[in-house]
């Protein structure tokens, strides 16, 4: 199955789990170092971490070592068992999300017929973790932050779901692997030199999807649930030590996974245009794509996360009511119109 080896089931599963760990932790670490430590510093005219390792590249290991030694403080009145579970749910939702992302013709974790459906369903699990984190802290700031997060995440869930429908209409399938194939084997008015990445036809959907991702990740300008200046980090106020770090890792790992999903849906995923090598279907794709595919996915992910972080560090924040109004009065009507337009064009052509 994987790399043309015929492995027993347990070995496949072990490989997949290890691959999943790499697919979650490696992007998270790279994003934090490259964008959060270095890019943000350069945008603010400072150097960022410079001491640990060359150009501060070992900073992350120092940070993890530091967080491991921090005292774990839990408010006396907090709901202790739920308080402990909340960060685990948020991290688990990230792992559940990465399961559907294909990295190569055979390098996939799962090959669901309804992969898109699954991804969209699982992406809302983290709301539960955030809501119970806010509730169980027994802190007014946390409670407000948790409630705001729940309101924001359900409001932006809808545009995200509806933006993907356009892609499904064009590809005619909900399987992530076949969506990749449909894009790379596609053609633009008979010219197949670039395949047909859906960003060209679904640019409205792509825009709505990326805005919704920004809001789902509660990155500025959609950071009302976190709001350092008024809610002191909202639902995370009472978390300290390693439990806080789990929230932190999950936030950036989820950013990476959403970027991976966006690159599968809109940017052609792991594939190169099939016409370059004379391939026509997934069966003909050479084996080396299982190695090159993950690299292509990784570079596309870095590009999209760069976009997310660039917007995060550049724009002023929305107010809470503007944020809700934007989702319900702009994004949802726009994505519904996009669905109908795509459907009409699909039937006409």
């Amino acid at each position: 199955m994987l790399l043309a080896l015929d492995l027993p089931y347990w070995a496949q599963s072990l490989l997949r789990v290890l691959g999943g760990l790499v697919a979650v932790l490696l992007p998270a670490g790279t994003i934090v170092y490259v964008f959060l430590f270095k890019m943000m510093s350069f945008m603010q005219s400072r150097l960022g971490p410079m001491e640990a390792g060359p150009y501060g590249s070992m900073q992350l290991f120092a940070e993890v070592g530091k967080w491991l030694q921090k005292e774990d403080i839990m408010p006396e009145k907090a709901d202790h068992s739920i308080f402990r579970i909340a960060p685990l749910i948020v991290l688990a939702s990230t792992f559940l999300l990465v399961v559907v992302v294909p990295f190569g013709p055979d390098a996939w974790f799962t090959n669901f017929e309804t992969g898109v459906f699954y991804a969209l369903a699982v992406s809302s699990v983290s709301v539960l973790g955030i809501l119970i984190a806010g509730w169980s802290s027994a802190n007014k700031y946390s409670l407000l932050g948790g409630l705001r997060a729940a309101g924001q995440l359900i409001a932006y869930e809808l545009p995200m779901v509806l933006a993907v429908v356009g892609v499904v209409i064009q590809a005619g399938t909900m399987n992530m692997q076949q969506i990749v194939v449909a894009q790379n084997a596609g053609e633009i008015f008979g010219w197949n030199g670039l395949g047909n990445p859906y960003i060209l036809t679904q640019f409205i959907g792509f825009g709505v999807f990326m805005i919704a991702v920004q809001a789902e990740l509660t990155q500025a300008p959609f950071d009302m649930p976190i709001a350092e200046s008024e809610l002191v980090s909202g639902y995370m106020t009472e978390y300290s030590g390693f439990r806080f770090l789990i929230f932190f890792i999950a936030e950036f790992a989820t950013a990476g996974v959403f970027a991976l999903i966006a690159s599968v849906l809109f940017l052609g995923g792991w594939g190169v245009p099939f016409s370059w090598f004379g391939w026509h279907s997934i069966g003909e794709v050479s084996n080396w794509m299982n190695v090159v595919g993950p690299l292509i996915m990784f570079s596309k992910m870095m590009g999209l996360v760069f976009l997310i972080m660039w917007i995060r560090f550049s724009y002023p924040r929305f107010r809470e009511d503007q944020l809700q109004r934007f989702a319900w009065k702009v994004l949802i009507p726009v994505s519904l119109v996009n669905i109908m337009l795509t459907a009409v064009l699909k039937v006409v052509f």
Partner: protein
Amino acid sequence: MSDFLRDYLTVVWFAATALLLSGLLLGISAAIRPNKPNYEKLMPYESGVDPVGLGWSQSQIRYYVFALLFVVFDVEAVFIFPWATQLERYAGFGLVEMGVFVFVLLLGLVYAWRKGVLRWV
């Protein structure tokens, strides 16, 4: 076991990995971190001011109407996706059907809008 079920088993393995990983790291952390609680540390943090009343204070949940609308549109999405995969087969007929469906839902959104429930009062 069929491939279909094996895919779901992989999902279970991934969830278990997430829990094991964080359990392991929390275990290491528990072994080496200090634990010296005192009264001030265990108070809810409210920017240095002593908290007044309970943490679970009454607050107005302003968006319960949004939550109802969310359910409506989420169910809509459940119906739209299967239609989207089969659009090529249904062609014009499917287009008109879904046009009517989406139009009715948009009417609902416009109604909610005019009623003023989309405001964060």
